[in-house]
């Protein structure tokens, strides 16, 4: 007997909705509301006593690895980092509770964005069982309460399609540009320097960096250097100089990240396990980008 299981991809996705993507009101509304979801202050200076910037980087790197290993939707990680930053901007937190907070933020972001969300049990395993599922669920309420249940935050991903469709890009390169831009967004989310930037600026800078990195400016003059920056700045209504600075900052973060990876690879003996770890600590595809 032949059994054909015609099960389609369990990840059911909505098709891109032209009513949402080809209407500038959507973009304008996103630009209007995005700043409501930024963390209130640079919390290392004014709120946190126990937590240092390098600890945020540690927990962010771990969260990115979990999201990648679990093949989460691209938005989950930046959204979880948004929750984490907003929580830390209002609640002094001890460093031994930081990983729990990271897990809770992934739990919430995954539930909001995915058809099959991450489970509490799985997330606890990823903390090496240092927290219990029950604790994760209890702290979920605390995070929700402190964020005033405002979970539908605007992320840089919300802007990507709006930006891409307004650029004269070769169709065959679109997929690659989108992928690189998403990688840059993830990279920005791991770096606290970008935490206070509006998502639209990070999105615009990431698309700019992706296009420059892929050297698509050969044929199309509007895709080269300054004219690209001006075009991008117009789309999201960003100041040209700020955008330029942001894009340069993104590129320099990429360079320092690549250097770090190279150093780690040189230092460590090239056993397979360590190599896998190294790869995990940098977003996928970052190394493929040709600067």
């Amino acid at each position: 007997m032949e059994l054909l299981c015609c099960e389609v991809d369990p990840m059911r996705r909505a098709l891109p909705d032209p009513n949402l993507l080809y209407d500038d009101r959507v973009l304008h509304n996103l630009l209007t509301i995005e700043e409501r979801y930024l963390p209130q202050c640079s919390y290392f200076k004014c709120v946190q006593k126990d937590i240092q910037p390098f600890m945020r980087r540690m927990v962010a790197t771990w969260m990115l690895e979990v999201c990648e290993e679990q093949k989460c939707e691209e938005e989950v990680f930046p959204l979880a980092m948004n929750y984490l930053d907003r929580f830390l901007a209002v609640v002094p937190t001890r460093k031994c509770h930081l990983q729990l907070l990271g897990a809770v933020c992934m739990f919430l972001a995954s539930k909001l964005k995915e058809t099959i969300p991450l489970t509490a049990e799985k997330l606890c395993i990823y903390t090496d069982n240092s927290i219990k599922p029950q604790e994760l669920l209890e702290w979920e309420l605390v995070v929700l309460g402190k964020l005033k249940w405002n979970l539908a935050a605007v992320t840089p991903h919300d802007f990507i399609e709006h930006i891409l469709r307004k650029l004269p890009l070769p169709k065959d390169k679109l997929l690659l540009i989108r992928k690189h831009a998403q990688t840059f967004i993830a990279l920005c989310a791991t770096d606290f320097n970008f935490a206070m930037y509006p998502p639209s600026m990070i999105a615009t800078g990431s698309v700019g960096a992706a296009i420059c990195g892929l050297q698509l400016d050969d044929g199309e003059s509007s895709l080269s250097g300054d004219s690209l920056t001006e075009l991008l700045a117009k789309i999201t209504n960003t100041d040209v100089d700020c955008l330029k600075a942001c894009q340069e900052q993104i590129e320099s973060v990429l360079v320092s990240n690549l250097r770090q990876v190279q150093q780690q690879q040189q230092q460590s003996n090239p056993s397979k396990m360590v190599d896998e770890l190294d790869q995990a600590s940098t977003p996928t595809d970052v190394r493929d980008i040709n600067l």
Partner: protein
Amino acid sequence: MSNVHLSSASALERLAARRTFPLHARTGVCRNLFGPVDHEELSRELKSKLREISEDDQRRWDYNFQTDTPLDGPGRLQWEEVEGGSVPAFYRETLQVGRCRFPVLLVRSKPALGGMDTPAGVNPRDPHQELVVSASSSPSPQGKTAALESTIAGGKERLNQENRSDQLNNYSGITIKPAPCAPAALKRVSSSSAAHITDFFVKRKRPGDSKAACDHPGGCPASAPAVPAEQTPRKRLR
């Protein structure tokens, strides 16, 4: 024997990642970042955070969510008891049995006038509807819409009146006394032992405080907490 064929490769990949994750196979990602967690301390911290949140909520809404009663004092908001049957269906208590929802008809000390004919709370497509409200005939969609519209219009009118009265009060300098709603509410609680937040609705904001409330969405204008509540931040870098 049967050959089962999964149509999509990416489906398999996802299933592998999500469902059949070998829980004991530790990858490098499973790690404890900041040392052991003191579970007792964590639980104390949890309780204090939950208390903070509940106090914030109480201040924000002038409502005690534990006892389900409005606060006595002359707060920012005043609560007024309304008949359960007079609110839109959306706010009414329902009971879920399996996949169906039924409206809950509370037995009250006072016979509810609108209590018996509340068909708006029933899903017209609900096959079990007749089992619950057998006396009621299913309303036509037009009737339902009209009822809803009238509710909305009534609400708006009420709001306008309130705004007007607030303005009048501003000019005349009359301070609005808190409505004597709390005793009534308490009485009702003791009689039916099931008060719901929807049994009360905000009557009006006091004009003097409304501005402060706008400045502090957290709703704690008087006693500023050590750490500011989440607020809309200023535009940056533009």
